[in-house]
């Protein structure tokens, strides 16, 4: 009797919670989440952590090495690198989130339509996706920036668009697999509309695989955004942003190591944290799929 009860309790756990539990049982995921939480909180708490203005120019304090007063030193026009690091981090993180949101919303929508309805619409969307996938990501983002013109908002849009094809591909693949399941047929037989089937049955079931792409994609889009800013196509001076800070600091690599080390460390640690979490989610998702197939 007790055994039976325990079994029921286990099955009552929602798939989402189970996935979370499995993900965070992983040591690297725990480390990654703590690291990411520290970085995000530090950037958000910028006004509390420093009283300096990230754009305040102090000609008497140019290229000062790290000290208690200036933990990350100062740049070529005497701005506090620590303040710029924190405020710049806010922007870099925002670029990643906005870009991935654009990529996910459009990519998933196109993928659902393409995979579910099929026909000429599917052929057309798939062809456009193939064409877009023929560009290396960064080149596609750069091409879009060539059209829209440089700038941080445009960089978010460009990186977002560059992500649409990957989301579309993955969603379409999942839809094709799920569409043929018996429960979809059953819903249709019971009179379920296409809209209902797509959003209450297919999308939630495709979500697990998409979650991996979203997580790892946030990392990639932060990186892509910073790369564009590094190339001078994203955030424009004097806006603090990690990639743009590296671009500016690059010229002083011989005199001021702190200008290249800290902003890069910010990008590296953020992406490392996200990759660790993403890998754990990916393992957990693979685990649940295997467990389901073996039942």
């Amino acid at each position: 009797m007790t055994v039976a009860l325990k079994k029921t309790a286990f099955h009552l756990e929602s798939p989402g919670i189970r996935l979370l539990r499995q993900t965070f049982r992983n040591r690297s995921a725990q480390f990654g989440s703590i690291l990411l939480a520290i970085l995000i909180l530090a950037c958000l708490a910028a006004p509390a952590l420093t009283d300096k203005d990230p754009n305040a120019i102090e000609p008497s304090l140019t290229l000062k090495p790290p000290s208690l007063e200036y933990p990350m030193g100062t740049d070529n026009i005497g701005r506090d690198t620590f303040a710029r690091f924190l405020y710049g981090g806010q922007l870099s993180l925002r670029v990643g989130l906005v870009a991935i949101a654009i990529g996910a919303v459009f990519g998933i929508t196109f993928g659902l339509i393409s995979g579910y309805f099929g026909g000429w619409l599917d052929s057309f969307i798939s062809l456009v996706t193939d064409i877009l996938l023929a560009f290396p990501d960064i080149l596609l983002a750069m091409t879009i920036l060539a059209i829209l013109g440089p700038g941080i908002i445009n960089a978010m849009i460009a990186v977002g668009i560059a992500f649409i094809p990957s989301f579309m591909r993955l969603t379409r693949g999942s839809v094709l697999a799920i569409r043929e399941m018996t429960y979809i047929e059953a819903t249709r037989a019971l009179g379920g509309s296409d809209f209902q089937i797509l959003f209450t049955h297919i999308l939630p079931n495709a979500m697990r695989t998409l979650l991996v792409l979203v997580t790892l994609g946030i990392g990639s889009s932060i990186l892509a955004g910073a790369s564009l800013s590094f190339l001078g196509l994203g955030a424009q001076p004097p806006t603090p942003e990690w990639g743009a800070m590296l671009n500016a600091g690059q010229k002083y690599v011989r005199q001021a190591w702190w200008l290249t080390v800290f902003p890069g460390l910010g990008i590296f640690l953020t992406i490392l944290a996200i990759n660790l979490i993403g890998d754990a989610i990916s393992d957990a998702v693979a685990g649940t799929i295997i467990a389901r197939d073996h039942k």
Partner: protein
Amino acid sequence: MVNYLIRRLLTSVLVIFGISVLVFSIIHLVPGDAVSAMLGRQKVNAQTVAQLREQLGLNDPIPVQYGRYLSKALRGDLGESILNYVPVSKAISEQLPSTLALAFSALLLALMVGFVLGLMAALAHGTWLDTLAMGLSVSGLSIPTFWLGLLLILLFSVNLGWFPSISTGSSLAALVLPTLTLGLPEAAVVARMVRASMLDVLGKEYITAARAKGVPQAMVIMKHALRNALIPVVTFLGLQMAYLLGGSTIVETMFARQGIGRLAVQAISNRDYPMVQGVVLVTAIIYVLINTFTDITYTILNPRIRLK
């Protein structure tokens, strides 16, 4: 298989055609007037604008413009840079060898480092060596190329003075830092693939069988496991190469090295649209050709796909 090959080639032709449409559209998708955007802050009169419009053929109907663009492109004429009037195809053919040299040397480095790390991790699966190799690998995947490049400059150029931080000319020393910058993150990808593929193969029954009949460990690894484990890695080479071409934009820019990546960045910053179109078109076509070639090789090498 012939059917599959024909279909694969047709798709590639269709994709290349699509790329040409997209690249052609760049100039028309620019919000507002592309010509004014190109001339930017230069003080020009209406006559110059009209002249450039005429020169770029922007006054004709769009299908006519596209037809002209395509027929010229097929003959290798990609227009002229609006900045220095150099023919785009000439600029690209001058810069491409430098990019290819960088991409090849980075690929070679990535394969060597990635192979050693991946194999080590797989053979020492579950030990600290595995953890170390995979730690290095996830760090390699997370490190921004431009930061890695700057750190390498800081260490090898500023502090040790071994290699130049500016990669001009064709000397081998100048190629070292760009190769490390581009190749090391890629080595991380290769290491992961080699490890996963090797672990997969080592779990197979024919490996157990080989061991059971007393084949020495080294022989099991070299003769039975490695050969099979390498198939997915080798077929992935094409994609890696293509990725390296994209990565060259950043590496070339930061090391002030010649190449089409840097050409692209400069063209975009200067809004030199004919040059942007040319570089994007050529890079995308190379990418498609590599992918097509990879797919076809894979099909020929893998009988399981051939039968389908």
